[in-house]
């Protein structure tokens, strides 16, 4: 018996093109995976030709440039972060008197514990997690269902709706600040203010046209025969969405997830406005207040903890991050 799920092996083995922006100019006969690996690690060639690389003067100059580049990147890019790690386990005295010295009076591990418990970084950390996860879920639901309807189901009013969604890309977030705040203060039909609830951050996060654009373009590139075959096999629109479309969409869901989670973790102004109650504030909003009232060593420990999660996420999902960033990044406007 042929169920819609048995269709899945038909899907090309390589990952679907994440491709939103310029299509990679690679010969088609390569598999996508191989082409990408080659593009990431070892380009066919760069500006300097192999012959030039063999001349001694060019070789020495290149090596010199590379060493300088590496040193500068380490000092400027990594330096401040390493300093923060050092300062988070130093005493306040050390950090104030000789900020560049390495532990003149020993390592002070207690900072981390103090920051976590006494300053309630644990609570705000949890709030940040809840806010980021909720925003991520709302964005994913809106983007996948909306993209599916607009790309695969294609109602007659689809193009108009898509145009309405895209047009919000041209409206910078600034314009929405005050009216959106008033909307959250008194949402239509609900009658309850969302201020000081996580919904006030979760729901507006879903209105992200860039996500819809990414998913719709990705779905547009999927082979339509798969959906036709599934339909002939008797799968309804819900079954096709859940068992055919979503399993094929892993690459784009990864990109959207990374964007969504990191954006929610970073956001400051909006949660500051709608979450005035300290008990529900995420780290980003709480830290500036703490900076005024907390001892320096504990504050720096708190900063380090707050930077940890996004950096770990980055190191784990490096490939997705850098590929998403290469897509010319999130449209901020």
């Amino acid at each position, binding site marked *: 018996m042929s169920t819609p799920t048995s269709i899945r092996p038909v899907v090309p083995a390589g990952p679907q093109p994440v491709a939103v922006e310029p299509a990679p100019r690679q010969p088609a006969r390569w598999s996508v995976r191989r082409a990408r690996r080659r593009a990431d690690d070892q380009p066919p060639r760069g*500006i300097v030709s192999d012959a030039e690389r063999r001349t001694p003067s060019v070789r020495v100059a290149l090596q010199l440039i590379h060493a300088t580049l590496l040193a500068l990147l380490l000092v400027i890019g990594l330096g401040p972060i390493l300093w923060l790690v050092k300062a988070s386990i130093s005493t306040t005295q050390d950090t104030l008197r000789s900020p560049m010295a390495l532990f003149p009076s020993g390592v002070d591990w207690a900072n981390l514990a103090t920051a976590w418990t006494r300053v309630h970084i644990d609570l705000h950390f949890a709030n940040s997690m809840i806010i980021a996860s909720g925003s991520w879920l709302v964005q994913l639901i809106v983007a996948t269902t909306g993209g*599916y309807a607009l790309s695969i189901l294609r109602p007659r009013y689809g193009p108009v709706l898509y145009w309405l969604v895209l047009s919000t890309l041209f409206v910078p977030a600034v314009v929405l600040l005050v009216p959106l705040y008033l909307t959250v203060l008194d949402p239509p039909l609900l009658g309850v203010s969302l201020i000081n609830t996580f919904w006030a951050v979760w729901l507006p996060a879903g209105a992200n046209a860039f996500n819809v654009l990414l998913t719709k373009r990705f779905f547009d590139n999927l082979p339509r025969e798969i959906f036709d075959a599934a339909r002939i096999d008797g799968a309804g629109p819900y079954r096709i969405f859940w068992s055919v479309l979503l399993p094929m969409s892993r690459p784009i869901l990864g990109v959207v997830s990374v964007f969504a989670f990191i954006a929610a973790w970073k956001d400051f102004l909006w949660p500051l406005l709608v979450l005035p109650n300290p008990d529900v504030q995420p780290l980003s909003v709480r830290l500036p207040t703490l900076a005024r009232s907390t001892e320096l060593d504990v504050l720096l420990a708190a900063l380090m903890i707050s930077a940890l999660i996004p950096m770990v996420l980055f190191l784990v999902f490096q490939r997705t991050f850098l590929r998403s960033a290469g897509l010319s990044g999130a449209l901020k406007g």
Partner: protein
Amino acid sequence: MRTWVRRGGLSTLVFLLPLLVIFGVFSWLPIVRAAVMSVQQTNLVTAPKFVGLENFQSVLADPLFWTAVRNTGVFALIALVFGYPIPLVVAVLMGEVRRFRGLLSAIAYLPVVVPPVVAVLMWKFFYDARPDGVFNTILGWVGLGPYRWLQSATTAMPSLVLEATWAAAGGTVIIYLAALIGVPAELYDAADVDGASIWQKIWHVTLPQLRGVLLVTLILQIIGTSQVFLEPFLFTGGGPANSTLTVLLLIYNYAFGSSLGGDYGAATALSLMLAVFLAALSAVYFWLTRSWSTS
């Protein structure tokens, strides 16, 4: 109606429901509301009153408006000087690295991942004006300083830009790297055959090939810097002597800065003016990336 349901019209609508509700309530409605509010007097207590262009006039008459516009322009300009050429140079150099390229781009991108609030609070400590401050210590090693950084009206804005550049440059480097990989190898081969030097290849092949990306990052950067808020808000609060008051900070102050209740009309009026400027830029950006992906 029946055939509409049978053809799947209803289930399509079910799938569109999240999009319609979320965009309707949290995007389309507020946009309309912004336009309406800019010509109204709103104070949440009495019913809104139509006041015509009064909000726009009061913003334009506010001396702080021109200060904010000038400061934002200065911020954008210094950010361009710092942040535009450096990532390009780094990316071009990085493009020639054969080993450890992944490691290099990861290090370059790492500051982008640090939450902005953490970065600003950390840099605020770096900018400590005492001779024992982090930057003053480092500069002291080579006999410079101590500088007053955020506490002086002349150095405050460049200090803000420096941090913002540190936080954002890695993203631009990655964009350029992606574009460099797209430069066809045949062009370099042809240039080699013609006997071009390395500099000539950069000047006549690489840069012209990057023209589109360079324009896009330029526009993205202007869009980003004209909405700068976090740095002035957390570093200086707009001071000293309003030398770092930016447009977005002024909007915030209009609407939420006063404990007496906000001037929502002036805030939306100023938002709309900024929006028209930014929307024009986004339109150019969108048109550019679009003509790219179809070509």
